[in-house]
């Protein structure tokens, strides 16, 4: 069995400018922030970021790494709006493909299943179709005389054809993993992490702790806490605190105080410079030291 252990820096070394990159988690929860910061301090540029957006999107926008964001929202959960994202949008610095969060899920599912689109009612009648003029409708081939038509109201019905969201790379963060690439989520919601990985060409996971293959179900954890199997993962990097400052229970909750400082740093360029020099444009060890200093 392949040993897929790698490092955060090596993961970022596999990314290229212009790539479409999926980032797991949801809002300000279980985001692979160590990788996000490593992208911020790299020379990557012109990225398309696909995410249930949180501070990953805000940070990448604040450091000018992003050409386009594909999302249904960007939020910090306990702070409704990410001011870095807000500034990027209001200054017209970033394009957006804004879709319903269920359409987003179907886009990942379609890519993972290798079909070009999946049909849905979601989006019909809304401005999602006008702000994304390339989104198309599809007419059901099952008409009134079809033996497969369950309900006459659906004869020839027109639905949104949500296109597959193909990713060049995807990055997720988990509580535990093994060197083969199986990943464990010990909080109640795996979000859409397995689908991000399934939709991607190159698939990476960071994790709090790497344990021996076959031991993820030890300590009484049911195997249902392991939603990510090794066929979905090319590289796994141990990164303790790798989701800080987003929530990653049971290892740690959201660092609300830090998140407030992150949000406040959007208010003016000097604040941002001060914040970024301590918490963005530094290596992981230095980052952790600066975070610890604040708590002291």
């Amino acid at each position, binding site marked *: 069995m392949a040993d897929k252990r790698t490092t955060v820096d090596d993961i970022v070394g596999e990314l290229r400018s212009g790539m479409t990159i999926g980032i797991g988690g*949801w809002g300000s929860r279980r985001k692979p922030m160590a990788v996000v910061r490593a992208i911020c301090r790299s020379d990557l540029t012109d990225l398309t970021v696909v995410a249930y*957006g949180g501070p990953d999107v805000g940070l990448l926008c604040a450091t000018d790494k992003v050409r386009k964001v594909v*999302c*249904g*929202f*960007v*939020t910090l959960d306990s702070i*409704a*709006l990410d001011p870095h*994202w*807000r500034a990027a*949008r*209001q*200054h*017209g610095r970033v394009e957006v493909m*804004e*879709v*319903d*969060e*269920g*359409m987003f*899920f179907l886009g990942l599912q379609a890519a993972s299943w290798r079909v070009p689109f999946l049909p*849905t*009612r*979601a*989006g*019909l*009648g*809304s*401005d*999602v179709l*006008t*702000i994304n003029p390339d989104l198309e409708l599809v007419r059901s081939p099952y008409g009134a005389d079809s033996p497969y038509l369950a309900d006459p*109201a*659906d004869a020839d*019905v*027109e*639905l949104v054809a949500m296109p597959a969201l193909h990713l060049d790379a995807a990055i997720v963060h988990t509580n535990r993993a093994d060197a083969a690439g199986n990943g464990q989520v010990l*909080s*109640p*919601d*795996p*979000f*859409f992490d397995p689908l991000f990985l399934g939709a991607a060409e190159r698939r990476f996971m960071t994790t709090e702790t790497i344990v021996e293959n076959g031991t993820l179900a030890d300590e009484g954890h049911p195997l249902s806490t392991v939603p990510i199997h090794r066929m979905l993962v090319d590289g796994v990097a141990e990164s303790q605190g790798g989701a800080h400052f987003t929530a990653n229970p049971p290892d740690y909750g959201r660092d609300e105080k830090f998140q407030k400082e992150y949000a406040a740093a959007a208010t003016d360029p000097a604040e941002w410079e001060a914040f970024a020099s301590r918490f963005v444009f530094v290596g992981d060890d230095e980052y952790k030291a600066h975070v610890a200093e604040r708590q002291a």
Partner: protein
Amino acid sequence: MSADSTPDIGVTRAESCVIACAEVWREAGEVMVSPFGTIPALGARLAKLTFSPDIVLTDGEAALMVGAPAIATRPADLVREANMPYRSVFDVVWSGRRNMMMMASQIDRTGNQNISAIGPHAKPKVQLVGVRGAPGNSVNHPTSYWVPDHTVRTFVEQVDVVSGVGYARAAAAGAGATRFHDVPRVVSNLGVFDFQTPDHTMRLRSYHPGVSVDEIEAATGFALTVPDDVAETRLPTPEELDLIRAVLDPGSLRDREVRT
């Protein structure tokens, strides 16, 4: 229909709003009720404890919750009955087993809601949270809206970015959009509204105690249908008032969302 009709039991505006929200779910049945905002959350819990015992509430994370505990209950003290991660929420949404109340930064005459952006979407004047699940919710299951600050800036002739779909837009999109489309109510800090007019434009359903119809019309950026026999939002029963004040919200979080 004026301030002096406020009853002696001292029902606050926030409490009238809670009652108005609870009434949205009177006939809901065994569906997942997803309330956004403090007052809709109180309304859903009140409905579950009184006239709609079958409704299903989430713990705000990834589970369905037993009972209807106080809104400030710590997550560790909640009792859960089933798993409900986001992936499964879409199964609920698209099967129609849901009845929700979203918030609206803008709501318009035909029931379109906006939570995406103010101004042009390409370069917004104000970036909001994003359309979230509003497009899909609104064409798959009953979706009502809560607006805690009713003004001409929130009740507008036409929203800037249609997130939740209103009646005219659903009709124009065809049967795929109209089949399960339903905007039962809009509740604001001033009154209750619905779309039970011949052309599905917004109608005043009731005004909250202490609010006048004139006040509501002045705070609305379009012509509102006002029935001749429009009534006051009903008062809470003594039992309901006790549940709100003593059981569900002893910390009066409701007054932070709507002041009397």
